[in-house]
C-alpha cells in the first residue's frame, strides 16, 4: 500500500462516488454545467447592468440638487407646498451636519414667480440656496457658461440657465424683474441682476435653473427659515440606516428619501428591479428545468444501482445527500463557468459602458435630473457570491425532484428487473 493511495482513500467515499458518477456521462454533465453557466452569465450581466444603472440613477438624482435624503417640513410629502418651513431650521442643519458619513448638507427655499425682461416673460421656480454649499450638492450649477455662481453676501443676484436666457433674450449683467406672491398674499417685485449663466447641455434643465441666495428669497417671500435640507452621503449604501438615525434627531420635521421626494423615479426604480428580477427568474427557471431533466434521466439510468445500494443499507437521507451533492458540484462548476463567461462582458460594459444617446436623444433629463446617456455596469466582488448562490440554488432546486424520486424507489421491484 502506498502512502499516496492511503491518503486518497482516507477521503469521503460517498463524495468520490458522487464525483465519479458525474463523469459517467460527461456529455450530459458538460451540457448541464454549460446550461447553468450560461444562465449564471446572463443573470450576472443583467444584474451588473441593472445595478450599474441603479447606482448611476441615484448618483444623478443626488447630484441634481435632491440629495440622498431631504429634511422637509411635516406634511410636505402630501401637500408639496413651497411655503412650508422647517420647525427649527438651525437644528435640522446641525443634526444633518453632525451625522457620520455626511458629505454635503445644503438648505433650500422655493417660490414660484415670473421673470420679465422688456415684453418677454417666463414662469420660474426661484430656488433660494446657500451659495457655498449648493455647488457641492448640485453638479448642474458647476457648469457655468458665463459669469460666476452666487457668492456669500450677494444681494439681488441671480444665476439662470442658458435656455432661460435665450427665451428672455437677455445677457450677463442684465436686470430681470421678478414678480411673486408673498406669504401674506401681497404681490412683491424685485430686480435681480444676472451674475452667472449655467449651461448643462440639457435645454429642459437650463429652462428651469433660477437661483438666488437664501437671504434674498426669505426677504422677498416674507417667510423666515428653510424649506428643506438636502443631504448627500459619502456612501449611498448607508442611506437607509442613516435615514432612520437622522429621523430620530430631527424633531417635528420629516426625513424623506429621494424615492419619497421623487416618487415617480422611485416607481421607475421599482419597475426596473421587478423586470430584472422577473428576467432572472425566467432564466433560472429554464436552467432549473433543463438540469432537472438531465438529473432525472441520470437517476432513472442508475435506478438499479440505487436499488442495490439501498439493499446494502443506504438510507433515504444519504441517498438524497448523494444526489444533491452531485447537483451542488455541478452548480459550483456552472457558477465558475458563468463567471468566466460574464466577466469579460461585464468588464467591457463597466469600463466602456453602453451609450444610449442615439436611442434616447441628446436631452436625457427627467424631472430636473440629468442622466448620463452612457450606462456603466457594476462590476465587483458581489458577483462571486451572486454567481455561486444562483448556480447552487438553481441546481439544488433542480435536483430536489430527482432526489425525491430516488427515495421513492422500491428496491425489490428495481432489482427484480433482470439485466438483459
Amino acid at each position, binding site marked *: 500500500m502506498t502512502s499516496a*493511495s492511503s491518503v486518497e482513500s482516507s477521503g469521503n467515499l460517498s463524495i468520490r462516488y458522487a464525483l465519479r458518477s458525474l*463523469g459517467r456521462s460527461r456529455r450530459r454533465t458538460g451540457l448541464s454545467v454549460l446550461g447553468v453557466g450560461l444562465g449564471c452569465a446572463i443573470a450576472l450581466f443583467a444584474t451588473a447592468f441593472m445595478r450599474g444603472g441603479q447606482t448611476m440613477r441615484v448618483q444623478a438624482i443626488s447630484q441634481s440638487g435632491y440629495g440622498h435624503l431631504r429634511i422637509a417640513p411635516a406634511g410636505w410629502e402630501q401637500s408639496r407646498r413651497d411655503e412650508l418651513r422647517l420647525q427649527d431650521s438651525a437644528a435640522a442643519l446641525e443634526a444633518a451636519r453632525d451625522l457620520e458619513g455626511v458629505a454635503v448638507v445644503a438648505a433650500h427655499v422655493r417660490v414660484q414667480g415670473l421673470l420679465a425682461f422688456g415684453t418677454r416673460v417666463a414662469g420660474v421656480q426661484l430656488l433660494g440656496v446657500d451659495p457655498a454649499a449648493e455647488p457641492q450638492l448640485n453638479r448642474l450649477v458647476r457648469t457655468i457658461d458665463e459669469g460666476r455662481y452666487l457668492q456669500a453676501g450677494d444681494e439681488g443676484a441671480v444665476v439662470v440657465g442658458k435656455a432661460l436666457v435665450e427665451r428672455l433674450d437677455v445677457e450677463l449683467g442684465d436686470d430681470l424683474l421678478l414678480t411673486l406672491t408673498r406669504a401674506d398674499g401681497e404681490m412683491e417685485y424685485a430686480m435681480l441682476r444676472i451674475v452667472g449663466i449655467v449651461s448643462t447641455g440639457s435645454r429642459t434643465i437650463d429652462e428651469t435653473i433660477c437661483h438666488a441666495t437664501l437671504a434674498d428669497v426669505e426677504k422677498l417671500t416674507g417667510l423666515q427659515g428653510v424649506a428643506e435640507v438636502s443631504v448627500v452621503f459619502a456612501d449611498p449604501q448607508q442611506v437607509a440606516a442613516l435615514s432612520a438615525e437622522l429621523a430620530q434627531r430631527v424633531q417635528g420635521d420629516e426625513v424623506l428619501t429621494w424615492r419619497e421626494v421623487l416618487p415617480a423615479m422611485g416607481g421607475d426604480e421599482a419597475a426596473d428591479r421587478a423586470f430584472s428580477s422577473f428576467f432572472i427568474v425566467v432564466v433560472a427557471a429554464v436552467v432549473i428545468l433543463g438540469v432537472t431533466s438531465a438529473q432525472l434521466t441520470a437517476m432513472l439510468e442508475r435506478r*438499479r*444501482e440505487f436499488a*442495490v445500494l439501498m439493499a446494502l*443499507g443506504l*438510507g433515504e437521507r444519504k441517498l438524497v445527500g448523494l444526489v444533491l451533492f452531485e447537483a451542488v458540484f455541478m452548480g459550483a462548476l456552472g457558477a465558475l463557468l458563468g463567471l468566466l463567461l460574464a466577466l469579460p462582458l461585464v468588464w467591457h460594459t463597466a469600463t466602456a459602458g453602453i451609450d444610449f444617446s442615439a436611442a434616447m436623444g441628446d436631452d436625457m433629463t427627467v424631472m430636473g435630473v440629468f442622466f448620463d446617456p452612457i450606462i456603466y455596469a457594476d462590476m465587483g466582488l458581489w458577483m462571486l457570491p451572486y454567481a455561486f448562490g444562483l448556480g447552487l440554488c438553481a441546481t439544488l432546486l433542480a435536483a430536489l425532484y430527482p432526489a425525491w424520486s430516488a427515495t421513492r424507489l422500491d428496491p*425489490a421491484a428495481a*432489482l427484480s428487473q*433482470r439485466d438483459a
Partner: protein
Amino acid sequence: MDEMLVAAQDVKKVFRTGDIAVEALRGIDLEIGSGEFMAIVGPSGSGKTTLLNLIGALDVPTGGRIVLFGRDLGALSRSERAELRLRSLGFVFQAYNLVPVLTARENVEFVLELQGMDPKKRRARAEETLAELGLGELADRRPSQMSGGQQQRVAVARAVASRPGLVLADEPTANLDSDNAQALLQMMRRLRDEMGMTFVFSTHDPLVISYASRVVTLRDGEVLSDERKDTCG
C-alpha cells in the same frame, strides 16, 4: 441449528398490476437458524426471489409475519429496515451489481462507510476481506476490468466485509461457469465455517444445491419440501 435468525409465519405476497393480482407466496412457514447453508429452489415463478426479498427486508409481506433477528419486519419503517439491512444482512446478486465507478476495494468499503466505520479501519477491513477471498490483487480494479467470476467474488466480499449474521444470495452462480461457481461456493462455505455466517441462496443450479446443507423447494408460492442433508458438496 443454533440461534433462530428468521421466522416466517404464514407469509403471503400478492402483486397487483391494475385489476390483476398475482399470488407470489401463499402462506410460507419457515425458520432459518444461525450457521445454515440453505438453498431455496424451485421453477421460475415459484416465489424464490420474492421470499428472499421479504427475508432481506427489501419488501413487506401482504399477509403473515416475518421476524428477522428478533424484529418484526411489518412493524419497521423504511429507514428502520434499511438500518437493519445495513447492520445485519449481506446481499449477493445474480448480476454482481458492483458500483461501476468504484474499485473493488471501494465497493467493499462503501458498505463499511455507510456503517460509519473509521476510514483507516474500513480500508484495512476491505483489504483484509479481499485478501481472505484471494482478491488482493484486484483491489484497485474497477468492475469493467474484472471477469464475471472475479466480480461475483468481489460482490461476496462486499456482502461479508461487515460480518453480517445473514447473507442472502439471489442466483449467485447464474452467470458463472462451473469452475467459477464451484470456487465461489467453496469460498462462501468457508466463510460459513470460519465466521459462522448464515447463507441463504435462491437458485436453480444443481451445484449450489449440492453444496447446501438444507434445501427448501417452492412451487406456486408454497413450500413443497424442506430437506436437511447430513453431508453436502
